[in-house]
C-alpha cells in the first residue's frame, strides 16, 4: 500500500509556506548544474518550471509533443487569472481568495496547498506584467480587473478574451530565453511514453520522436510532469484534440497514485454538438448568462419549430422556474445538470435534441442591440462563425461540455508524488481545486506551481540525492520500460482490424458522458464498469492502425492515447462509484438535497481517494488521505 504523507508543514496556516521555504533543504549553486531535471509539457506549468529551473542553474530538458511549446492548450483559456492583489480596494485578501477556492471546491481540496496558491497569486501578476503580458489597463495605466463566478470581489486580471494565450506567451518567452542561452534543452515533437523507476524513485523517461519514430531513453535526477488534464476521455470536450493522459497514466502504472479521477468539470455554456463527425466543442463565455434567458419549449412537439413561433406561455424558462432567486445565474454545476434534465425529458432543441436556448431578445428590447453588441459582440461573432446563425435574431443554442479535470496524480505539499523524484504540476495534479474549480483559477495554479512552488520544493528532494548519482540509461529498468513501449506500438500496428481508432474513442466518450458525466448513479456506473472493459477488449482485437512506426504516424499517436483513455475511463467510473456522496462536480443522483444541491457526506468522504495500480486485470487499491480543515469550517455550499 502506498504511503501517502502529505507533508503539510506544521504551524498556523498563513505561516506554513514561509516557514517551509525557510526550513527545506537547498542545493548550492555549484551543485545545481550537476543535477538534471526533466520537464514534460510546456503549457503554463511546464514552461514556467523549465525556465525558472534553468535560470537557477539546473540542467533542464523540456519535452513537448507539440511542434512548439507555444501550442500547449493553456493557450485557449479565455477569461482571466485570479490574484489577491486587492487593487480594487473592494475587500479582497489572500484569505478571501483562499476561502473562495476551498468553498468553490466543495471542501475537497487540501487547505495548506490552496492557501499557498492564494499567497503566491500576487507574485504571478508581478512576474507576468514584468514579462510584458499585455493585461487590460485602466486609463491611468494601472491594471484593470473583472469579476468572475464564485467571488464577491473583482480580482480577475485579463487580456481581452485570450488571457491564456498571453500568459503562455509570457512563459514561452521566458522558456525561449533560457533555451537561447543554452540553459534548457528543448525537445519538441517528442512524446513521453513511459516513466522509468529505479529503486522506487523516478529516474527517467522513455520518449518517442513523433517525426522519426525514434524511441529514446533519458535519465534524470528528477522528473516533472506538467502534461495537463484528461478530459478527452470523453472524446468531445473543449480540450485540444492532442490533449491526453498518456504521461500521467503510464506514471500511474509505474506506481504513482491517481487522486480523485472522477472530478470532472462540465461547463454549462458551450456550442452544442451538430453531427457525428464533430471533433471539438467550443466554450462560450459564461458571462452571457448575465443577460441571456435560458429556455426550452414546454411541449416536446414544439422542439423542432422555429423558436420565434413559440408563444411566451409555451416556453419553459426552467432555471428561473426552479431556482427563482438565482435564475439564469445558477452555479455552473446546477445549470449544467438542469439542461441535461430537460433534454433527457425530450425537450431539447436543435438537430440532435441536445441543446437549450439562450435568448437575448428581452435584453435587446431592454438595452438595445448596440449595448448587447458592445457587451458580447465577440461571442456573438464566434457563435455565428461556427453555427452560421445570427444570435441577435434567433436564440443561441447551448449545451454543457467537459472542460477541466480536477483529479490527477496525487502530490504532497512539495508537489511530489508518492514516487520520490516524480513531481506533478498544474492540471495534471489534483491538489488545489477539490471537487470543482472556480473560473480564472486554472491559469493561476499552473503558473504558481511552475514559477513559485517547484523551484523551492525540488531542491528539498535533490539535496537528498548525491550529485552525479543519476543512473545510466543502460540500467535494466530503462530497457524494460523501452521494451514495454515498443511492445505497445507493435501490438497497435499489428492488430489488422476493421475499425479506425476514432470509432472506439467515440464509443468510450458516449459511455463516459452517459454514466460518468453530469449526473451519476450506482446503476449507471456499474453498467459503465461492465461496458468499458468489453470495449477495451474489442479495441485491441479490431482496431486498425495504418502506417509504420518509423515516420510521422498520427493514427499511431492517437491509438496509444485512446488505449490509455480506455483504461483511465474505467478508473474514473470506479472512483465515482465508490465516492458515495455528491460534492462539487461529482453529482450522484442518490445523494442530493431536496433542492437538487449536492449532499456531501463529510463523516465518510472528507478525504482524497488516491488509486494505486495493482497490475493489469487486478482491481486498483483505494488509498485515502483524510482532509483536515483547520482554518475553515466545512459547511453546505450555498450561493443563494
Amino acid at each position: 500500500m502506498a504511503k501517502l504523507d502529505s507533508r503539510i508543514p506544521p504551524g498556523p496556516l498563513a505561516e506554513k509556506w514561509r516557514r517551509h521555504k525557510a526550513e527545506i533543504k537547498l542545493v548550492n549553486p555549484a551543485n545545481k548544474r550537476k543535477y538534471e531535471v526533466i520537464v514534460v509539457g510546456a503549457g503554463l506549468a511546464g514552461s514556467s518550471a523549465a525556465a525558472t529551473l534553468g535560470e537557477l542553474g539546473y540542467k533542464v530538458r523540456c519535452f513537448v509533443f507539440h511542434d512548439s511549446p507555444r501550442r500547449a492548450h493553456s493557450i485557449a483559456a479565455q477569461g482571466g487569472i485570479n490574484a489577491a492583489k486587492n487593487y480594487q480596494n473592494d475587500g479582497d485578501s489572500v484569505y478571501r481568495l483562499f476561502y473562495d477556492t476551498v468553498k468553490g471546491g466543495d471542501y475537497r481540496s487540501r487547505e495548506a496547498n490552496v492557501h499557498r496558491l492564494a499567497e503566491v497569486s500576487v507574485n504571478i501578476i508581478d512576474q507576468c506584467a514584468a514579462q510584458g503580458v499585455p493585461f487590460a489597463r485602466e486609463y491611468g495605466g494601472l491594471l484593470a480587473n473583472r469579476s468572475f463566478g464564485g467571488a464577491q470581489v473583482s480580482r480577475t486580471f485579463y487580456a481581452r478574451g485570450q488571457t491564456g494565450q498571453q500568459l503562455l506567451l509570457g512563459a514561452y518567452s521566458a522558456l525561449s530565453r533560457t533555451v537561447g542561452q543554452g540553459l534548457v534543452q528543448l525537445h519538441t515533437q517528442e512524446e513521453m511514453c513511459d516513466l522509468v523507476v529505479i529503486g522506487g524513485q523516478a529516474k527517467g523517461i522513455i520518449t518517442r520522436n513523433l517525426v522519426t519514430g525514434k524511441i529514446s531513453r533519458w535519465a534524470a535526477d528528477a522528473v516533472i510532469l506538467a502534461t495537463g488534464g484528461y478530459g478527452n476521455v470523453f472524446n468531445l470536450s473543449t480540450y485540444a484534440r492532442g490533449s491526453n493522459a498518456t504521461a500521467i497514466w503510464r506514471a500511474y502504472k509505474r506506481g504513482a497514485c491517481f487522486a480523485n479521477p472522477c472530478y470532472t468539470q462540465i461547463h454549462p455554456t458551450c456550442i452544442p454538438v451538430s453531427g457525428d463527425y464533430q471533433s471539438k466543442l467550443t466554450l462560450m463565455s459564461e458571462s452571457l448568462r448575465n443577460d441571456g434567458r435560458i429556455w426550452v419549449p414546454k411541449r416536446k412537439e414544439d422542439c423542432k419549430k422555429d423558436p420565434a413561433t413559440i408563444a411566451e406561455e409555451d416556453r419553459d424558462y426552467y432555471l428561473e422556474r426552479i431556482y427563482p432567486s438565482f435564475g439564469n445565474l445558477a452555479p455552473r454545476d446546477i445549470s449544467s445538470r438542469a439542461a441535461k434534465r430537460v433534454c433527457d425529458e425530450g425537450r431539447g432543441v436543435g438537430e440532435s435534441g441536445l441543446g437549450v436556448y439562450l435568448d437575448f431578445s428581452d435584453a435587446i428590447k431592454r438595452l438595445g442591440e448596440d449595448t448587447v453588441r458592445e457587451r458580447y459582440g465577440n461571442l456573438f461573432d464566434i457563435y455565428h462563425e461556427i453555427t452560421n446563425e445570427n444570435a441577435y435574431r434567433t436564440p443561441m443554442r447551448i449545451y454543457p461540455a467537459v472542460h477541466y479535470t480536477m483529479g490527477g496524480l496525487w502530490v504532497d505539499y512539495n508537489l511530489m508524488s508518492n514516487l520520490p523524484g516524480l513531481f506533478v504540476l498544474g492540471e495534471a495534479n489534483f491538489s488545489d481545486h477539490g471537487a470543482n474549480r472556480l473560473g480564472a483559477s486554472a491559469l493561476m495554479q499552473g503558473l504558481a506551481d511552475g514559477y513559485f512552488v517547484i523551484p523551492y520544493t525540488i531542491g528539498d528532494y535533490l539535496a537528498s540525492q548525491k550529485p552525479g548519482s543519476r543512473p545510466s540509461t543502460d540500467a535494466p529498468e530503462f530497457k524494460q520500460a523501452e521494451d514495454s513501449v515498443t511492445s505497445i506500438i507493435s501490438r497497435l500496428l499489428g492488430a489488422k482490424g476493421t475499425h479506425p481508432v476514432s470509432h472506439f474513442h467515440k464509443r468510450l466518450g458516449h459511455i463516459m458522458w452517459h454514466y460518468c458525466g453530469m449526473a451519476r448513479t450506482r446503476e449507471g456506473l456499474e453498467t459503465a464498469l461492465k461496458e468499458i472493459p468489453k470495449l477495451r477488449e474489442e479495441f485491441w482485437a479490431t482496431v486498425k492502425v495504418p502506417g509504420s512506426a518509423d515516420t510521422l504516424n498520427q493514427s499511431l499517436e492517437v491509438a496509444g492515447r485512446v488505449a490509455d483513455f480506455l483504461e483511465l475511463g474505467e478508473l474514473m467510473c470506479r472512483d465515482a462509484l465508490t465516492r458515495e456522496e455528491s460534492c462539487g462536480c461529482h453529482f450522484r443522483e442518490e445523494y442530493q438535497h431536496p433542492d437538487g444541491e449536492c449532499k456531501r457526506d463529510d463523516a465518510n468522504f472528507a478525504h482524497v481517494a488516491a488509486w494505486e495500480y495493482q497490475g493489469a486485470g487486478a482491481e486498483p487499491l483505494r488509498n485515502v488521505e483524510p482532509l483536515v480543515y483547520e482554518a475553515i469550517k466545512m459547511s453546505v455550499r450555498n450561493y443563494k
Partner: protein
Amino acid sequence: MAAGVSKNNISVTLRVWRQAGPGKPGGFVDYPAKNVNSNMSILELLDVVNDELTLKGDEPIAFAHDCREGICGTCSLMIDGKPHGPNQGVASCQTYMRSFEDGAVIVIEPFRAAPFPIVKDLVSDRSAFDRIQQAGGFITVRTGAAPDANSIPVPKADAELAMDAAACIGCGACVAACKNRSAVLFVAAKVSHLGLMPQGQPERDSRVLAMVNTADELGFGSCTNQGECSAACPKMISHDFIVRLNRDYLAASFRSAFCAHAAGGHAE
C-alpha cells in the same frame, strides 16, 4: 460518409498534396467526398476522409491541428492557394464547408517556404519561428525579481496596441502568403508587442536586431510591402506593425553602429 443529417449537404473533391517525407517527391491526389454536412469544418472533413482511407488500407493524410478553435496556431492548410482558406480572420480549423460550392474541387497544400520544410503531406516544420523567439523575443526578468505590477503603469492606448500585436498565434500564414517568404509580419508583431511596453525598453534595440537578423539567417525573405501577409493573417495583424519594425530596426542599427553602449544587452 458518416455526416449528420442536414438539408445543406454538399459533395466536393479534395485535391490533397501527398508527400511521404522530407525531400521525397510529392503530388496531388483527389479524394471525392460526398454528402458532406456544410457545418463541418474542413479539418473534420479530413478526419472523415482519413477514417475512410484507414478502412481501405491506405495511409491517412497527415495534417497539423490541435485546439480547433483558432488560437493554438497549429493548423496550417493552404486552401485553394490561400493560407487558411477563403475567409478572412480565421484559421484553417475555423473554415467550414459552407464556404464552398457544391461540386467544388478544393486544392489543399501545406504552408510552403524554404525555412518551413515539409515533414509529411500537409505538415511543415515551423520551428524556425521558435528560433527567432529564442534569439530575442522576450523581456529578461528572472522569476521572483519583478516589482509590483502596478509600479509599471502602461498608457491604455499603448497597452491596447501592444495587445493587437500580441494576438499573433505563430501559425506562419504570413510567410506562406508572401511571394518572398518573408517572416516580417511575425517579427513585427513580436517586436511591436514588447517594444510598445515600458518593460520592453531596455532590450528594445538588441531585440529587434537579433530577431530580424535571425530571420534573415534562417532564410526568410525580405518585405516588398505587398500586404499579402496581413490579408492572410487569421488574427488580422495590421501591416502598420511592419512600419514600426522598420523604424525600430533602422534606429537600432544606427545606435549600434555609432553608440556602442546603446545596444547593450544583446542576446547571448
